[in-house]
């Protein structure tokens, strides 16, 4: 016997979706919706909020840009000027006032006009500066008479001069006796004199 179902296919009992499938489909739809919703929430919620916060903070920073630029330029100016001052001070400290040195030296040699202690003179003076070694002063010297103690007195007076504290080295006493018949007394002691000043770099370190 041939049975013919005249009901439309989807209404036929045997073709209807079973409840399990329907429930699963519903569940799947729910899960998918939740997943998409979660993504949407994170993407359009959290990320957007963060981007907004970024925009806000960027705007805040931008509003300070002019002030910061002004400060930076000012600071550059300040550094430039300060460097000039520093250089001037550095250069100024490295200078020795030679007119003062010569005046002090003249005072030592003149010894307030008292000639009993020594009567000295120099043939010449040569001052040579060296930033590493310090300044060297060469003074070929002479003392009247043949009394060696006068030369010793002169050495002693040089060591007590105001500039002596800045010396790192001074020649030790040595002499050659000479005679000049055109002068009274004819005898005189001639000796080398070399003064070595402490270099400024060392002097600054000491301080």
């Amino acid at each position: 016997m041939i049975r013919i179902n005249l009901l439309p296919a989807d209404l036929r009992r045997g073709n209807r979706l079973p409840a399990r499938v329907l429930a699963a489909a519903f569940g799947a739809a729910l899960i998918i919706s939740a997943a998409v919703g979660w993504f949407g929430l994170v993407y359009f919620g959290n990320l957007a909020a963060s981007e907004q916060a970024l925009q806000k903070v960027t705007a805040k920073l931008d509003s300070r840009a002019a002030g910061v630029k002004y400060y930076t330029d000012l600071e550059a100016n300040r550094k430039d000027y300060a460097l000039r001052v520093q250089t001037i001070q550095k250069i100024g400290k490295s200078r020795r006032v030679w007119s003062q040195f010569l005046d002090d030296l003249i005072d030592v040699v003149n010894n307030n006009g008292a000639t009993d202690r020594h009567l000295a003179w120099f043939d010449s003076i040569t001052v040579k500066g060296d930033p590493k070694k310090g300044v060297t002063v060469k003074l070929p010297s002479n003392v009247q008479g043949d009394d060696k103690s006068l030369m010793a007195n002169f050495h002693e007076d040089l060591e007590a001069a105001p500039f002596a504290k800045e010396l790192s080295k001074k020649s030790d006493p040595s002499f050659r006796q000479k005679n000049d018949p055109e002068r009274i007394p004819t005898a005189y002691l001639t000796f080398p004199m070399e003064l070595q000043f402490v270099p400024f770099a060392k002097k600054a370190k000491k301080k």
Partner: protein
Amino acid sequence: MASWTQKKLLMTMGGVSLGVCMLAGGGVYYTHGLIDEVEIKIAEKANAVLAADAKIKQTRKVETEVIILRENLGEYVKILPDDKELIDFVRMLQRFERESGIKSTGLQQAKGSRGNAKGRFAPISYTFDMTATLWQGLKFMNLIENFERFVSITDFSIKKPRTTGDVKTIDGEVVHSIKLTMQTYKYNKAAAGQEVTIPGYEDRMAELREEIWKRMQEIRLTHYEHPGVQGRRDIFVDPRENGLAGGSDPSNADQRDVLEKDIGAVADLNKMLEKCRAEGTPLMEQYAIEKLFKSKLTVLLANLDKDAAFIVYRPYRLRWAQEVVAPIKQLQQRMITPQSKPADPYLSKDAIQDLIALMTDDCNSGQLEQARQRYESLQERLAVPAADPRYGLAVDAKSLHHKASTALDFKRLDLNIQGVVVNGGTGRSGMLLNGEVFEEGDYIADDLLVKQVEEEQVWFVFRGLTLVRTM
């Protein structure tokens, strides 16, 4: 699909759901990554905002610093200027040459010192050759070292000039050959940044005036003032006595004698002045000492030039300057302005009474000049204020001084009485004075009146004082 089995359907749905969930999870994970990145950026920018705020907060302080430094810039530029001022520096050398009297023979820029360094300050060295006496050279060096532009003398030499024959001198001082190496610095403007415009600059500058001035003092270079020759000798010249044919100068021993004589005289004068100014010295003794002091000082001063020319030996010249000339100046100064004024600047009552008695004696004995001098030597100490009980005595002394001075002036008047006519009570008597006839009551000059003419004497009124001139 219709033919799909139930199992297949369920599997497909599960698979699709899982796929979508995984995609969503991946998306969420990726989005969290993005959020993290954004948050890092936010944190960075927030820090930058904080840093910017801190900087902005510091702006006023930096502005202050910049204003102070900028206002002092003029001072730095003076010390270390750029090219233009370097030309002025060379011009200044010419001025210093004129001021010191040196004679320059060359100025050369030292090799390898062109000032082209890339730094802010490029050193430039010059070598300057000159001929000068020690004192001229020293003055020139001092002017260079005190110049507003920073100049450092790095090397120098003083030597005998290379000449044949006699040594060249200027005013008796030997001329030397001097060589200086001077170093200065050139400021490199290109290395500096642009100047920032500070709003309200003028007002801020006015506020900071004191601080600007204070800082300016810190950058000033130390200066030294060369005191000049001060009788000292040139240390590059043999000071010994010239033994050739004795020379024209007096011997050192003779010079020393003169020097010591004058030093002794100065010491004596000092002692006298000390005694004169001492508290317990009686007034009359003070007067006598002062008189002696003045006469001795006059004698010493009269011989000073002669003795100065006699002492030519340089070591003695210094002693002469220090132990004779300077103390004499001090003595003269002390004479003009007494160093320590007594607590009571006026003479005591007894001293004024003594003075009046002595002046009266002087006037009565005709010693008018002495009376006047007595008063004038103590005049400062007689300016007693009206409220002081000694005022009356001081006025009496002043009146005596006035009388003595008027009498002395009257004495000096040219009054040649050639004859008198005396009318015994019938009319005015008269006289022939310097060829002119004057009667009693006539004015000879504005301050001189004929009061009474008698046979042996004529009475005059001179500056309110009645004086008599005998025939």
